[in-house]
């Protein structure tokens, strides 16, 4: 990955890529460090679990960082979209189960139901995002304080509506039959759903990068970030593009929510705000506005959490804060962040 080099300035390119190289070597070193205390099989299982968690967190964090990087909006209601995605998925799975596709379905029915649920979550996230952007956020562009306050208020409202519609208690989510169980590679047990989510996460990352870097839309979006007036003068409707980016971000959060609910097999109204903290840490670690940064950050958080939870269970919650502190000490803007 050459992202560190491409984000650097022209004249300092070589120095920065040398630094990035050192960073990568140290990073891989730390990644392999737990092998001293954990035997290889367990290490691999934990790695898969960590990657899964990382990918699920990435889905939420990527939308968060995209919205912040491109629109300069800190959307603290992002966690609420996560929860809404999970609850929408929960209801959809309930409907699909009624026609026998979920718990008793064949492989293809399971895959179809997963795809349907993901599509529903994406749609719910996008529609709610559209409403939030049009009704509430549009009036407060450029004012960070008001944005934070208003999105916090919105997240309260959204979480409360969940309680009103679905009730305040925990619910158990159904998992499509074909995704239950695991494969076994030389004693390394890989849960089917975990493998699926890693594939989906990487897929979303690749598509996001391709759209941002290779398509005309991506160029317009990046141009709009650099110089909004110029893009407007070229005849593009920047406002509409921003709305689109916002919806995409919230849709990914909702998708992350439904994947998370299938991973944990339970949902509760406050799941959104808990997840938002992970997203915040990831975005701070990765550098605000950088999708690649949040991808790396998500993997780091996921892996660190799983290794430490195995080695020193009591420290598991603190390790992410520790990780954040270390990264910020080395680079105050986060891994791939710019000033």
């Amino acid at each position, binding site marked *: 990955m050459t992202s560190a080099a491409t984000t650097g300035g022209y004249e300092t390119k070589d120095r920065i890529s040398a630094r990035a190289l050192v960073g990568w070597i140290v990073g891989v070193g730390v990644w392999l460090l737990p092998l001293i205390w954990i035997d290889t099989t367990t290490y691999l299982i934990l790695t898969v679990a960590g990657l899964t968690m990382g990918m699920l967190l990435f889905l939420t964090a990527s939308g968060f960082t995209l919205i912040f990087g491109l629109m300069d909006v*800190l959307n*603290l209601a992002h966690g609420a979209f996560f929860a809404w995605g999970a609850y929408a998925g929960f209801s959809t799975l309930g409907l699909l189960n009624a026609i026998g596709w979920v718990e008793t379905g064949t492989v293809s029915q399971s895959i179809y139901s997963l795809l349907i649920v993901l599509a529903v979550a994406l749609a719910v996230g996008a529609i709610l995002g559209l409403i939030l952007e049009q009704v*509430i956020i549009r*009036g*407060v562009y450029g004012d*960070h*304080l*008001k944005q*934070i*306050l*208003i999105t*916090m*208020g*919105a*997240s*309260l*409202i959204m979480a*409360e*509506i969940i*309680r*009103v*519609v679905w*009730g305040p208690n925990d619910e158990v989510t159904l998992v499509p039959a074909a995704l239950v169980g695991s494969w076994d590679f030389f004693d390394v047990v890989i849960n089917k759903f975990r493998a699926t989510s890693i594939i989906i996460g990487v897929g979303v990352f690749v598509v996001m990068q391709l759209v941002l870097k290779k398509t005309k839309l991506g160029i317009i979006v990046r141009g709009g970030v650099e110089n909004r007036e110029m893009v407007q003068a070229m005849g593009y409707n920047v406002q509409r593009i921003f709305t689109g980016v916002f919806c995409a971000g919230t849709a990914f959060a909702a998708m992350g929510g439904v994947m998370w609910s299938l991973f944990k097999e339970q949902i509760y109204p406050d799941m959104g*705000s*808990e997840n938002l*903290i992970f997203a*915040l*840490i990831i*975005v*701070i670690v990765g550098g*605000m506005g950088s999708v690649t940064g949040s991808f790396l950050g998500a993997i780091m958080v996921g892996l660190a959490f799983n290794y430490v939870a195995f080695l020193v269970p009591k420290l598991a*919650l*603190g390790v992410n*804060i520790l990780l*954040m*502190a270390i990264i*910020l*000490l080395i680079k*105050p*803007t986060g891994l791939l*962040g710019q*000033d």
Partner: protein
Amino acid sequence: MAELTPVQAERSREQRARFAGPAFLAQVLLLLALIVIPLLIPSFRVLDVLAKIIILTVAVASYDLILGYTGQLSLGHAMFFGFGAYSLALVTYHSGSPQLYHIPVAAGIAIALSVVSALVIAFFSLRVKAIFFAMMTLALAEFAHILAVQWYDLTLAADGVSFKLPGIFSVGWSAGKFLGVELNGRLVTYYFILISSVLLFAGLLRFVRSPVGRVLKSIRDNRQRAVALGFRTFRYETFSIVFGSTVASLAGILFAMWLRYVNPDSVMSLALMLNILLMVIIGGLGTMYGAIIGAAFLQIAETWLPDLQKLAVAFFPTNEIAQRLAERWILYFGIMFVLVVYFFPRGFVGTARQLVKRHKTAKKGIA
């Protein structure tokens, strides 16, 4: 006498005006009311609301220092409040038999804890963008909340810590009747809270009117100019954040003294943070006195709104969704939050000051 600089002239004008005019009168009246009401109305509910308003005023004012005067959005203010509350609760609870000296010990612990953590937060987050501070404090506050919920051996987790206060503050203490009112531990605690809060509030007022406070305002209004004038903005901001957070932790101690019970949700949660935020905004950012109005408004609403909800339940006894809607007062809180930020961003005191200013300039225009 030498010619005064504009700043000096402004300051002397301000000092002369401080003990005259309706604002000063209002302060004296408010203070008198807070002293007398508990003696006149011996209702526990009223006393409870008053004490909470007083304590929250200090917490909100200290938050106003950070947000309104320094321009940094901290989402971890409830964490500092919780540090204070928990240090008193844990010191008295784990010691077995509470002693009077435990209160200053708890205050010392709370101050040390908040100074260190505020310094760490400032050091990590103020070096980058302003928005970083908000994210960082939010993450840390949530972490502190999780810690309080999970660390059962120390904090008794979600069960909360119920503790007894020593000596004259204990519930059983009584000094007979005075003017027909029983002087008991509750009342002593109330006056202790009142005195401490007035002192803390005066300290905050002194802080924002000091030269440091002026520098902070200049940083908030125009950072580049402040830097160009040679002020080390990082130090000033750090100082303000540390001071505000410490005052919040002391307010937390008072809160714990009043309730004699703490749990993670009541003193550290994001809900409390949002409460404080809304109070600051309703009162008016950067006004200090707004804290009193904001705290009073929300606290009174919070105390008597549940009564209204019972009414709603009585009207729709069969509809489940309607009942759930009535139960969820946080929903209305959230809606109010958004509406206030949108339509009433200056708050009561800010709007009032704007009106007074407009009135004055209008008069000048006529003359």
